[in-house]
């Protein structure tokens, strides 16, 4: 376990964290502002990836496909908002769970009807397909750097938007007392629609950005959804800052756990049981982390005020 290796694995962990943040950002925003459990976030992520693949097939240019897929994601999100979500604001969380679960079933199987069950793929755009040398024999793809940049961009953008703009102010006010904001003459329904549409677009965006390194397949959003929930719960629901820090924590814990659990266990036990126990512990680590954080801080690390 050399120092360089530890350093690179730490970088890998941070990168996974940023990736998770990208997915979780929209979820925590919608959840925090509208007190809405949107299980469908994962399938919206999936849909973004599928739309990008579909548009890429037509226009053969990644960036045009990206823009088109984003717009389509937004349109679809607004349609969903109009048909379903709008009627569920202020309803019990259980109702939201079941309705969005229904949407998961519909979309997971809907994309299969449209695009088939076989995994699809989206190539990395040519201009960004290069790689930098990180250590002898190991290249670091430029696209991953783009993803990291996108993650930081989204984090900074959201932070500025929520903290310094009028709409951000309304979002914060709406989160703590929607009725009061509405009484002050603000169209809260419109506000919620905008936030929801934006959240959907963020989900779609993360799906598009990650598609070139992952398999695009039905159900690809299900496990991601769970990870995203873990992130926002550790961070404190509704807190962008919390989600960012929690995502980095999970990325680090997961990556370092996978890389070194066996080596560390070998210090205290024989190699063969270490090989058995290590990976099992590594898979559980993020859940252990979540349980510990919630035990110590039952509302996450950075609970949003006023709830």
């Amino acid at each position, binding site marked *: 376990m050399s120092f360089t290796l530890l350093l690179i694995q730490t970088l890998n962990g941070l990168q996974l964290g940023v990736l998770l943040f990208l997915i979780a950002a929209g979820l925590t925003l919608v959840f925090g502002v509208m007190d809405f459990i949107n299980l469908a976030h994962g399938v919206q992520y999936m849909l973004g990836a599928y739309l990008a693949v579909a548009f890429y097939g037509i226009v053969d240019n990644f960036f045009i496909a990206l823009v088109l897929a984003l717009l389509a994601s937004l349109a679809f999100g607004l349609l969903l908002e109009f048909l379903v979500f709008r009627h569920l604001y202020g309803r019990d969380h259980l109702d939201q769970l079941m309705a969005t679960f229904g949407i998961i079933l*519909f979309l997971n199987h809907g994309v299969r009807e449209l695009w088939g069950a076989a995994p699809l793929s989206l190539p990395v755009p040519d201009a960004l397909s290069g790689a930098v040398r990180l250590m002898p024999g190991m290249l670091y793809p430029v696209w991953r750097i783009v993803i990291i940049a996108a993650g930081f961009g989204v984090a900074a953008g959201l932070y500025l938007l929520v903290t310094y703009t009028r709409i951000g102010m309304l979002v914060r006010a709406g989160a703590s007392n929607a009725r009061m904001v509405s009484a002050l003459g603000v169209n809260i329904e419109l506000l919620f629609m905008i936030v929801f549409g934006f959240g959907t677009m963020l989900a779609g965006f993360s799906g598009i950005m990650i598609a070139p390194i992952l398999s695009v397949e039905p159900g690809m959003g299900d496990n991601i959804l769970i990870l995203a929930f873990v992130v926002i719960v550790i961070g404190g629901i509704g807190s962008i800052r919390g989600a960012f820090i929690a995502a980095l924590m999970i990325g680090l814990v997961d990556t370092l756990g996978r890389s070194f659990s066996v080596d560390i266990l070998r210090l205290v036990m024989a190699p063969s049981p270490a090989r058995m126990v290590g990976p099992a512990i590594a898979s559980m680590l993020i859940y252990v982390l979540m*349980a510990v954080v919630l035990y110590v801080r039952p509302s996450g690390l950075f609970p949003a005020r006023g709830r």
Partner: protein
Amino acid sequence: MSGATITASQTVPAPRLAREIIRPALIFIALALVPLLAKLLSAQYLLDLGSRVMIFAVAAVALDLIVGYCGLVSLGHAGFIGLGAYAVGILSAEGFGDALISLPVAVGASMLFALATGLICLRTRGVYFIMITLAFGQMIYFIATSLALYGGDNGLTIASRNTIVGLPLIKTDLALYYMIFLFLLGTYLFCRALVSSRFGRVLRGGKVNAIRISTIGFDIKRYQLVAYVISGGLAGLSGFLLANSTEFVSPAYMSWQRSGELIVMVIFGGVGTLDGAIIGSAAYLLSEAWLSGLIENWKVVFGPILVMVVLFARGGLIGISAKLWRPQS
């Protein structure tokens, strides 16, 4: 949780008689008659379907106990089912194939796990509770997949169903069916009694306003913990039944998707009604069996149905039936 939960009992002041006696009685009579129906149609597999419905109904009723009466939504209940099932599987592999041993172990282990995790989980509320129960469910799932000695993720075949006091009483599917039936009936009556007792009133009070209940002098967390442990134990019972019915145990029984399905069953039927959980389980599994026979990609249809139930039928199927007989409310 906001106060927006609208259960059938709140919207519809239906006669208690209908709600608490006739409706459940009809459900259980219908369930008791399934073997007859299977015989008449010479459709033996209906027995299996019915058993499956009742097994999940046990778990769904257990879940409704904490969802409907404490406002605690657990996304880790499949973990208890798996724990109960693995108790049967492992004991049977080690030569203990009698229900006198496996049943107490299945239920006891689940209750113990519920106690240990409940102490931690109950520090949180709302969505945090959902997620922390998920975390424990996932941990036990990963432990099961790494149990190489007992098949790991390939699962474990059970040589034969449990004996009862040394006798092969549940050898036939029919006997097993009625054993499951009795356990479901017992579970239902037990939970019914529990929620209408003083204990249950404290739980319900705590769900509506925890602060008020605490002010009166009840330690609401302790009450909730007891309910959580009971619920876990009953889910373990469901696992015991599932293992005996499929004669096979697998980590797949503990996946979080399964926990999600249980929640859907409870909501589908009607939260906070107990018998709604039975109806929900039946409706979920029967529509699954029915739709999947009609269209391969049946979930494309089933998904929107769930959405519609939420949008247009508050209070689940129980809510619909309540509205049907009291349209003016």
